[in-house]
Structures are given as structure tokens and as C-alpha cells.
């Protein structure tokens, strides 16, 4: 089999997490099935679009922060469709010698990413499941040097891995593969401080390829084992190093997601 072989086929009749995310970010890279699901989720959890956007904003701030810490290699797992404010733009703008590898399980998102990145050197796109760490590291190491620090981004992806598939083990595998000085970024949906309808939204998410598993702060914090969380630790997304110009968010819990960055 070729190296790009993945068992998942292209199924346009099911919504894709990547395209639903794109819709929430105002993108046009989505189909009716994706928008239909997005609207159902939105009806249940009116803040969802904000959560998604907030996650995107966090990612932008975090990548800037990581570049400031001297990181020049990024491994973005669960990258989705790289539309507004994507990682390579931010990183390359901050440091032109940055290298970025995107990983997603959706073949359409991967093809789209490849089209966007066709003229951008030092970027690569890998079609792989987030749980398939061996494959991810194998493909990523064609561009990235795993003897030097790497920032691994797991933005809004671990909640797609059910407990039965042991997401902690996936993170641990990644941790063991990166050298000291590397960073781990996680943002993750939670039911902490959330109203009951969030649970219904979670149920609906079963119509995408994977269901969302909401997890409490302690469980998410445990994923950072072997890393040291940088300030301000694991917090609701809007509280993670907001721009000083941004208005102070009084109710960050309505976003329903935690974020944290940690160093090995």
C-alpha cells in the first residue's frame, strides 16, 4: 500500500468536523450537511460559534507566544481547513524560518490544505488519525527535526477521542517523541460551568465522524503530565493571555472550553 493509505474513505453524505468548524469561523468551505449540523448545534448551544472563534483566537495568541519562546517547528494535529488566521500564516509572519506540519483525518480538509500550501515551502500536510501517533511522527519527521524542540498543537481535537481510545496514552506517546524544550498546546471542550443543553449538543456531535467527549479540568490537566504548564495554566480559553486591548471577559466559562500551553 502507498504511504498515504488510510482506511477512511471520502464520504460526502456525512458532516465533517473540519467543515463544521470552518462554517463556525465564517468560511465557505462547507456543504449543506455540515451547515445543517452546525445550525443544530448552534440552536442547542448559542455560544458554540463563539467557542470556536475563541479557540481560533487563542491559537493565534499561543503561536505568537511560542515563536517568542524560540519555537520554529509546529505540529498541528487536527488542523481542519486552514482558513481564517491559520497557524502557518501566524508562525511564518512571526518567524520566516518556521516549519509547520498540518495533520487531519478528513481527506477533503487535507486536499484543501495542500492546495493552499502548494506554494508555501516548509509546510506539509498529513492525512492521519490523531490516534495514529506512529504515522504522524513518521510523516512529520520528513520536515521536522525531532531532535530540536517542537510545538505540538492539539487544539480542539482531544475531545474527539473517546475515553475508550485512551487519549492520555496518545498524548504520552507524543510527549515521549519530542525533546526537552518542546511545547504542548491543548484546547478542550468541557461541561464545567455549562448548562444542560451542552450535553445534548454533545449527543448531536455523534453525527459527525466522532462524538465529542466533554472532560473536567483535572482530567485535561493530567494530559500535561511530563510538561510544565506556562502561565496562566489551564484556564477557560478567553483567559489565556488575552490581548491587552481586548475587553476583559467577565464570563469566560460560557465558552465551554479550556486551554493551556506547557513546556517539556
Amino acid at each position, binding site marked *: *500500500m*502507498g504511504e*498515504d*493509505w488510510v482506511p477512511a*474513505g*471520502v464520504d*460526502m453524505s456525512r458532516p465533517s468536523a473540519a*467543515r463544521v468548524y470552518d462554517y463556525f*469561523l*465564517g*468560511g*465557505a*468551505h*462547507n*456543504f449543506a450537511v455540515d451547515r445543517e449540523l452546525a445550525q443544530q448545534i448552534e440552536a442547542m448551544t448559542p455560544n458554540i*460559534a*463563539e467557542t470556536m*472563534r475563541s479557540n*481560533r*483566537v487563542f491559537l*493565534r*495568541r499561543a503561536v*505568537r507566544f511560542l515563536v517568542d519562546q524560540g519555537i520554529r517547528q509546529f505540529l498541528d494535529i487536527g488542523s481542519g481547513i486552514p*482558513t*481564517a*488566521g491559520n497557524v502557518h500564516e501566524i508562525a511564518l509572519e512571526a518567524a520566516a524560518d518556521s516549519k509547520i506540519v498540518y495533520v487531519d483525518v478528513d*481527506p*477533503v*480538509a*487535507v*486536499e*484543501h490544505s*495542500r*492546495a493552499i500550501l502548494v506554494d508555501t515551502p516548509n509546510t506539509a500536510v498529513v492525512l492521519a488519525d490523531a490516534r495514529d501517533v506512529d504515522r504522524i511522527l513518521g510523516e512529520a519527521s520528513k520536515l521536522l527535526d525531532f531532535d530540536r524542540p517542537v510545538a505540538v498543537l492539539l487544539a480542539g481535537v482531544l475531545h474527539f477521542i473517546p475515553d475508550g481510545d485512551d487519549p492520555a496514552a496518545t498524548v504520552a506517546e507524543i510527549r515521549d517523541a519530542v525533546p526537552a524544550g518542546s511545547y504542548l498546546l491543548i484546547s478542550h471542550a468541557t461541561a464545567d460551568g455549562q448548562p444542560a443543553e451542552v450535553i445534548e449538543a454533545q449527543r448531536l456531535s455523534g453525527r459527525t465522524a466522532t462524538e465529542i467527549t466533554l472532560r473536567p479540568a483535572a482530567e485535561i490537566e493530567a494530559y500535561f503530565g511530563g510538561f510544565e504548564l506556562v502561565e496562566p495554566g489551564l484556564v477557560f480559553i478567553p483567559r489565556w493571555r488575552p*490581548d*491587552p*486591548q*481586548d*475587553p476583559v471577559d467577565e464570563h469566560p466559562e460560557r465558552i465551554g472550553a479550556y486551554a493551556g500551553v506547557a513546556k517539556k
Partner: protein
Amino acid sequence: MNPSSFADQWRQRLTAAGFVPLDADRLGELLSGLAEALAGGQGEAVGAALVEARLTDPAMLAATVEAIDAQFGDRELVAQVAAGYAQAIRAATMAGQEELNQAVLRALRASEARLRAVFDNAAIGIGVSAMDGRIVQVNHAFADLLGYTPEQMCRLLVPSLTHPEDPRDMWRMYQAVIEGDVDHVRMEKAYYRKDGGEIWTDLTVSLIRDDAGRPEFTIAMVQDITDRRRLKKRLEHQATHDPLTGLPNRTKIASDLDRIFREHKSVGLCYLDLDGFKRINDTLGHQVGDELLTAVAARLRESTSHVAGRMSGDEFVVLVEDPEDMSGLAQRILTELSRPYRIGKHRLRISASIGVVESPVAATSPQELMKAADLTLYAAKSDGRGRFLMYDPERDARQAARYALAAEMPDALDRREFTLVYQPLVSLEDRELRGVEALVRWDHPRLGRLSPDSFIPLAEETGVILALGRWVLEEACARAAEWAKTFPDRRVCMSVNMTVSQAHEPGLPADVDGILARTGLDPSLLVVELTESAVMDPGGTASLVALADRGIRIAIDDFGTGYSNLAYLRRLPVHMLKLAGPFVDGLRDGDKVDEHIVETIVRLAHAIGISVTAEAVETPSQEAALRRLGCDTGQGWLFSRPLTAEGVTELLRAP
């Protein structure tokens, strides 16, 4: 208000309104530039620039309209901005959808290319056929397996791939798949290759349904198992066939017999063995023996359509399902096998003995059938070989009893259940006691006193004869030595019977030496009696010569019952003949022919220095005739019945 403070307000409105995919500095820079453009009246360009910066959230446009209206109060400018924004967002959306479509197409192509690569390069053969039996698509592996190109195969129909060894219900199963009753079938199937060769495959046929669940295609997956199957067949054949003759072996015969018992009402079995095969092996060598067995197997195969197998050595069986004429079959086999064989430079003849059994399957079991056939074969051999015998339950019972008796003999010897009696031999001249013949009796705890006829042949077959014979000889010699010591002036000879296998035993002379030494018997007082055939058997000649060298005399027992050949009497160390009972019996009625025969024998014997004893003398007229004819000694009820040792002692003591 200056442009920078307008840009600042604008920024705050946007940030409050919704998602801004730019950080604050960037947004500030962007809006400062756009504020100047607005001042220059470039409304449409500003609207387009907002979209380009991905401020595509509808709330962005609303906030912008409000900010511009508040700053400029210029509805035309606002309209220009809105138009530019709408135009740009339409273009962006169309571009986005186009990009997405392209991405989907590429992803599908990549996915299909992978599937195509899998299909084309798979090691196993894959073929797709339509419900009407047309082969729609096959991969190289499948086409190669059958020796076609994929294009050639696609011109074939599924039913043309039939093979005579297809499982009986294969087409029924295929039909069940086509009709949607089952989704998969799996079987071992053979195909003819285009070049006429044959291959065996492990075939799985799966049904593919359309969206409505209707059967649409079948997918066949085949794996070449020709070699595996060939190996399996060979191993099976090796495990169930005799490597020398290629006939089914004991294992296969046993399973075939089980099958007949399951599937048929009655069963017949010929159990056969070659007469004297061992001698061919011993004299002409194993090479010739093996070739003869192979030739016999070929004859068996040709002479019957029934299953013939080799059990072991020179034993074969023929199994018959629902037999009609077993004796005819057995006779045919005997005739066929007895034709001469040409093995290398040898021209051989060999006969066979056959035990034949026929039985309803309900009345017996495979094991009993085999046992009965074996016993019947044994009886056929005892009856004189070169013949077949039908199973006889009474004979079987007798045979079983004989076997039981044979099994008891070694223990009986240990328990000293055997005793000797002695029948006097007297001079026909004066009735003087010349010797005694030791006769063995078995005091069986259950059956009472048994005569030698009922157990000596058994002892001979089982080999117990050697131990029994040694005991008899030692006991008789001890007794004779005792009499010689007690009655030194009466020369009483001791006659002891010996069988052919005793005479063949290489240790016999040494045994005899030991016995003579232990008992102190003068060898000239010992007479060993053997049958004519034992004397003539070349295997025993050396022993007889060795005994004669020690001064022991040799007597031929039952002389005249075998194929009497007087020539050997001169060559062999024979000292005495014992006339067989029938001749003596004939003298009773004064039969002239018998008288002539006896007279001739006596004269001939005397001519070469051999004395003659008459057995079974019962009447005075017989005694008178024998005396007249010159016979030397007599033995029989007329003179004395067999006596105990004490009886003989008393006789000797008498004057």
C-alpha cells in the same frame, strides 16, 4: 474627528460585534489604512478589503456601516462600502466553494486511486461480476491465475468457469447469493486455466447491494491453494497408502470398513496371505520379495473392482460392499495370484490362503469382522494352504478355545501340570522289554487329563514347545538314568518325541549335552523320535547329525504316512523306523497287500541296518504276523498300556 481616532472607534465596534480573525495591532493597521481610503471616497475598495481580511462575519458589515455612518453621515459612501463588501463576499464564497469542490474531487481521486491500486496490485485475485453472470472487472492476480488477460476474462461468463469437481451445491449457493438470500459463500473451487491446466482456489463470493438494498454485483476473491492442496493430498495419500504397493494401508482400510458399516447393509472381507512368502524373502532377497508384493498388489487391483489394501508384510485384504458371491471372488483371486510371476530373472509361483467373511453389518463390528477373517485365514493355512475358507462360527469357537489353551501353557509348565507316562516297547521275539516311549500328559485343572494331540500342535505354533520339550527330555532322561543305575543288566532305551521346531532350534545339541551331563544318562540309551517330514526338513539335518554323533539314535515316527522316500534313509543318521498304525491295523485282517508292504519295508530297513518297530499292536494275530514278517519290536495295548514311572520300575523289578 481625525482618521486615527475614527479607525480606533471602528476597531472597537468590530471587536465588540464578533469574530475578528486578526489580532488588535493588525486590525488597527488595517483600519487606519481603510479610514484613509474612505476619506478618499473609495467605498467599494474598502468593502472588498474587509472581506479580503476575512472579516466575513455579517456582524462586521453591520458594525462597519454604523461606524461609517456615524463618522461620515454619507449614505452613498455607505452604500458603496456595502456593495463592495457584498460583491467581494460573493466572489469569496464562490471561490471557497470551488476550492472545496476541487479538494473533494482530489480527495475522491486519491481515495479511488488507492482503491484502484489495491485492486490492481492485490496478491489475491479479485473479480466483479454483474447479476446476469457477466464478468465486469478482474484484477491482474485473478486473470494471471487463470492464464488470461483481464480484458479476455471480462468476455467470459461466470457459469463458463465451471469445473467437474465443483462442490455439488456450489451453483445452488451461488444462486442464493445472487438472489440475496446470503451475503457470502466460501468454498474450495477448481478452475481450468486457459492453457488447459488446473488450479485450486479458496474462493469467497460476496454480494454487493445498491442503495435500496437490491443485489447489484458479486465480488469474488480467490487465493491460489493448488500447492497447499497438492501437499495436503500427498500427505493424506502417504498417511493412508502403503508406499511399496500403493495400495490403501491398514489405516485407510479401517476407515473404509467404518464407511461400509455406516453406508451399507452387509459387508464381505477377504483376508489373504501369501503361502511361504518368507522363504522367498530369505532365499531370493528382500528386493525380489518387494517386487513380488508389488506384482501381487497389481494382480489384486486388476482382479477385483473392490477396495484392496495391504495390511502388513504379505497380508492383504479385499473389502466388499453388499457382497453377492464371496466364494467366487475368493476363487478368482486365488486363480489370479497363482499364475506365475516374472520378477527379474526369476520365474516364481506362489499360492495364497484366504479367510473369507460375509456378514450383515448389524450382526458384527469392524473389529470382530477383521478378527473373524484373520482366524479363518489361519484355519485355511492350517488346512493346507492355497485355498480359501468361509468363516465358520463353530470353528471359530474351537479356535478361540485352542488359543486360550495355548495361552495357559507357559504357566502350566511352571506349575508342573505336565507329567510323563511310558509305553513299553518289547522284542517281538520274546516279548522282552527293550525300551519305553515317554508320552506327555497335561493334567489340566479344569479340563482334566489332556493327551498330546490336543496341545502339542498348539505348543508348536506358539513356541512353548521348546520349553516343554526341554522339560520332557530332562525328565525322561533322568528317569532312564535312574533305571539304568538300579537295573544295570537290563538295557532299557528311552524314546522321546521331538517336533520339527525343536529339531530346528540351533541350541538343541548343547541342551542335550547339558541334560545328559546332569542326568548321567548313557547317550546310547536315548532315542529321539521325529516324523518323516521333520527328518527330511533340511533345517534340522545338522542337529540330527550332531545328536547321532553323540551316540543318540534317531527313530522315524509314523513311518509310511508321509511321502515316503526311502533314498534319504541312507543319507541321514536314522537308526529305527516306527511303522505307522494303519499298516499294523491292516495286519489284523490278514490283508495281503499290507503284509507285502510291511515285509518290503522291514527287508529294506534291515538291508541298510535299520531296525523296525510296530506301533499300535493290539491283537495276537497282528503280533504273529509281525514276528513272521521279521519286525524287531512292538508297542501297543497287546503288550502294555502306557505306565507311570513306578509302573515301569515294577515291571523291571519283576523277574
